[in-house]
């Protein structure tokens, strides 16, 4: 009976640990996968780790993370230690409530801390702006910058702010354990307060200081939410970069970087635990009061090592100077352009190439969706020069007067843009945009799981495929599919037509056609053969095809949506000249070719379209498959059947929203 119980409880413990660690284990395993799938194992390889170190975005964010974490740790450890000593010196009546108050941030929700810091910085910047404007008005000797934006400094301040309580929390117990008379005793023996701090207090509370610093560092490296709200657009930490990358899919590069992050944090935690354990053991031994065996009864001259401490201090100071110097060099007076695009939407070699050619530093950030980008721009959280929104969002931005008219004289490469991609509905006079990439939405299906060649959207509603179809999880695309199937326009504002399309979705849902609604998960589901049919973007299909050769792509005969992401310059951009240079560079034939080859989305550069088959042959030593090329660069006759999204009037947007919510329920 008893034995059984024990087996049961062991099993339970095993399950708990499995549940806790299986996801991380999986992540670590797949970081060594040779293929780029998270489902299919293609053998062991260290490729992703290699790629990781060549991934500019990640390496820059790692550098930023380390810089912020180290600086924040150093500053908050010093500040927190002295704060703890100060609190400790207070009368109990004050000390206890103050300690509680200082601990609150550690249990406060990150999101609240992040938002409130964001608000605070915003308010400070506004006040400063007014002051600077007034100051510049009344005198002309010094020109103060009127517009401040969030960036490295705010990020650092935020990290220091949330690190300090952890340091206090770790140092305070050590102070409480310390005999208060020690400080008096040191001063009595000739120490000034500062000497007493170094010679007596610090050695006593050192374990607390060290573990406080370690925890502060871990927290800093780990933090996403607070950084997200305080870093502004020009700075991003590792966690933010990873989050940006997941916009498209969880790439094995993320597995690799997450594995490294996990191991780093693990090592730090083990280190701090070992330190603590050793300290406790020492304390225990002290408590036992075992008289130590006397090895050398005659006085051994005590070795003093002032050089040691001086060396350590020197090394610390030097490294701090180096770090700050590196920071200054990194953010210094070099011209810069802040770009916001989508995750995995550029061949990063192009950034390096651009920087080498022009000497302009590119600050490349990513947003998750058009809507996120929009709200970022609206809230003033973005400090971007160039953004790459999609068609319908561009018209909205133009409508709201947020884009600057481009100076096409500075973009000679615009002449290479195929006429087919000029004066598109979102920018009819082509005053604001240069196309970046474009693509189509179509049906991706697994040829082994259906017995016919799919050519129509009807497959998306066919009870025959019940439980095998994945619906795209956004209202515009899902209802768009139904509208197209019914032969209506994607941009219809007729409520009857929209409701008809909605009914189609409802019937299919009720008929059990859809196994689920997904976005980025589509990669895993389709690669793994877990669904037969899904709707997604052409470029992404090619990525999936690499991992599952049975997949097919079709733009249904009823037509579909085609979209363009175009480069625009924001009205309040601070680096317009650099922004134009960047757009011109990206519009060039070489850049277009390289980028097209990397992201597998179509280009609008007519030379690049013409040269791509040769480019492919040259680079891969084999002929470009025409079918593949047609998927990347949808031929004009197919494109004719497709429609572009336009901004819908408000009432139609509301209707979409309410229908979508109903469908979800």
């Amino acid at each position, binding site marked *: 009976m008893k034995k059984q119980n024990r087996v049961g409880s062991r099993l339970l413990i095993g399950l708990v640990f499995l549940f806790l660690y299986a996801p991380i284990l999986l992540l670590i395993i797949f970081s060594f996968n040779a293929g780029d799938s998270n489902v299919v194992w293609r053998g062991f390889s260290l490729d992703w780790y290699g790629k990781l170190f060549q991934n500019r975005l990640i390496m820059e964010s790692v550098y930023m993370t380390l810089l912020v974490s180290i600086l924040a740790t150093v500053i908050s450890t010093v500040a927190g230690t002295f704060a703890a000593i100060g609190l400790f010196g207070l*009368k*109990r009546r004050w000390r206890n409530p103050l300690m509680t108050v200082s601990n609150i941030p550690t249990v406060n929700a990150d999101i609240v801390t992040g938002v409130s810091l964001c608000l605070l910085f915003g308010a400070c910047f506004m006040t400063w702006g007014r002051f600077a404007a007034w100051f510049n008005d009344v005198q002309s000797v010094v020109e103060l910058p009127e517009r401040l934006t969030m960036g490295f400094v705010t990020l650092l301040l935020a990290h220091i702010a949330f690190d300090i309580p952890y340091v206090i929390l770790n140092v305070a117990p050590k102070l409480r354990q310390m*005999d208060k*008379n*020690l400080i*008096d*005793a*040191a*001063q*009595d*023996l*000739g*120490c*000034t307060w500062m*000497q007493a701090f170094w*010679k*007596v207090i610090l*050695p*006593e509370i050192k374990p607390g200081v060290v573990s406080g610093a370690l925890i502060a560092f871990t927290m800093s490296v780990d933090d996403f939410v607070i950084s997200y709200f305080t870093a502004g657009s020009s700075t991003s930490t590792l966690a933010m970069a990873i989050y940006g990358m997941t916009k498209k899919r969880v790439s094995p590069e993320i597995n690799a970087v997450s594995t490294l992050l996990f191991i780093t944090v693990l090592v730090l935690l083990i280190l701090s635990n070992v330190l603590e354990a050793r300290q406790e053991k020492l304390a225990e*031994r*002290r*408590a036992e*009061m*075992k*008289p*130590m065996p*006397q*090895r*050398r*009864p005659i*006085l*051994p*001259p*005590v070795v*003093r090592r002032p050089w040691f401490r001086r060396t350590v201090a020197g090394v610390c100071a030097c490294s701090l100077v180096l770090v700050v110097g590196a920071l200054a060099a990194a953010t210094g007076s070099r011209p810069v352009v802040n770009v916001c695009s989508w995750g995995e939407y550029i061949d990063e070699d192009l950034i390096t190439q651009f920087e080498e050619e022009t000497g302009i530093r590119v600050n490349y950030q990513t947003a998750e969706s058009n809507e996120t980008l929009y709200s970022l721009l609206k809230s003033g959280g973005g400090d971007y020069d160039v953004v790459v929104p999609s068609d319908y969002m561009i018209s909205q931005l133009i409508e709201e007067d947020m884009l600057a008219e481009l100076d096409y004289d500075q973009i000679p490469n615009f002449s290479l843009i195929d006429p087919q991609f000029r004066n598109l509905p979102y920018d009819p006079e082509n005053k604001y945009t240069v196309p970046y990439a474009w693509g189509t939405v179509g049906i991706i299906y697994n040829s082994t799981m259906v017995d016919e060649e799919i050519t129509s959207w009807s497959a998306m509603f066919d009870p025959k495929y019940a439980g095998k179809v994945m619906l795209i999880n956004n209202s515009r695309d899902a209802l768009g599919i139904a509208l197209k199937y019914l032969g209506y326009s994607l941009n219809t504002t007729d409520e009857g037509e929209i409701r008809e399309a909605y009914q189609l979705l409802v019937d299919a849902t009720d008929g059990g056609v859809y196994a689920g609604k997904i976005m980025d998960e589509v990669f895993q589901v389709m690669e793994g053969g877990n669904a037969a049919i899904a709707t997604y973007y052409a470029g992404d299909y090619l990525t999936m095809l690499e991992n599952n050769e049975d997949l097919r792509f079709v733009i249904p005969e009823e037509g579909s949506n085609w979209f363009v992401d175009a480069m625009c310059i924001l009205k309040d951009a601070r680096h317009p000249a650099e922004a134009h240079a960047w757009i011109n560079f990206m519009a060039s034939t070489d850049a277009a070719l390289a980028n097209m080859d990397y992201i597998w989305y179509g280009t609008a550069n007519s030379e690049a379209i013409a040269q791509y088959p040769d480019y492919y042959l040259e680079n891969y030593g084999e002929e470009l498959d025409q079918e593949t090329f047609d998927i990347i660069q949808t031929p004009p006759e197919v494109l004719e059947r497709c429609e572009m999204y336009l901004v819908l009037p408000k009432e139609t947007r509301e209707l979409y929203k309410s229908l979508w919510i109903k469908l979800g329920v």
Partner: protein
Amino acid sequence: MSKELIRLSDCVVKFDDEIILDHLNLYINDKEFLTLLGPSGCGKTTTLRIIGGFLSPTSGDVFFDGQRCNDVPPHKRQVNTVFQKYALFPHLNVFENVAFGLRIAKVPDGEVTQRVMEMLEVVNLKGFERRPISALSGGQQQRVAIARALVNRPKVLLLDEPLGALDMRLRKDMQSELKRIQQELEITFVYVTHDQEEALAMSDTVVVMDGGLIQQIGTPEDIYNEPKNAFVADFIGESNILDGIMRADGVVEIFNRRFQCLDGGFAKDEPVDVVIRPEDVDIVPETEGQLRGTVTQVTFKGVHYDTIVDFYGFKWLIQTTDYCPVDSRIGIKIDPDGIHVMKKSAYSGMFGDYSSYSEEYDEIGDASLAPDEEGSGDEE
């Protein structure tokens, strides 16, 4: 005695609105062993902290060797302190603890070694240099603390209840040890304690304090034999304190009976407090006694019996080697030098009645076991 070294002049210390020291005036001579004696919260530790420089008086002046030193920080005073719980540095070994002050003063290594070793010899800790503090017993830690303070050759050593944490036997040993060291090194000791036995055994001068005021300053003999008021009489040893009336020089009336005494200089018929030490009372047969009473309680104490006797409703403590059973009637006789007459004070009527004998006796016994309360009480 020798010249004056420290003077506290009209010192007042207030925390918030609480008066801790009330216009204290005190001078301390060179090479003197002076003890500040009093119950918890009497201001003795505060006085010590003023001398040490850890506390500035709210008003009043502190002089050291004739120089005003109110604002001189502790590390610049020629004074060292032995703290209540020693406050040894746990991260340093015995040698480095003792050497600490010399290191701060940047004394050359060779001299440090020599002086530390000398001092360890003085406190009988030779051979312990390499030990960590945690491996020492309480008494050994105590000696390290003393050595650490004395190695700096201070003019004054302040000791804040240094023996409070030791057990009885060790405390007795350390008392004579301290006295020996003080005489050997010829340094002024200012010693704080609440233990009257300790104070009487070691001091040249005892300062009895209560409520932030000095109650009496004198040699141990003066303090014991000629207490100035009921507080001192009660705090130092056991006392029966009675209301009396001074009828003439050398004649005091207690319980309507006249007794011969050695005191004088009072007004005629002045109400006074009369102190009679329990050991100064002789028990005689009832018929021969100057006063007659009933025994209510007897406790065997080893050397003597503590006998509580009821005289006309007032209970006395009498220490005698003669056993008198409970409820027996006895008489007592007091020699004139056993009677000590004091002026009436704020403390009159508060002490010296043994009707609640057991509780009060216990309380006195307890006080020596609770030095911690004292420390925290003074700090707050």
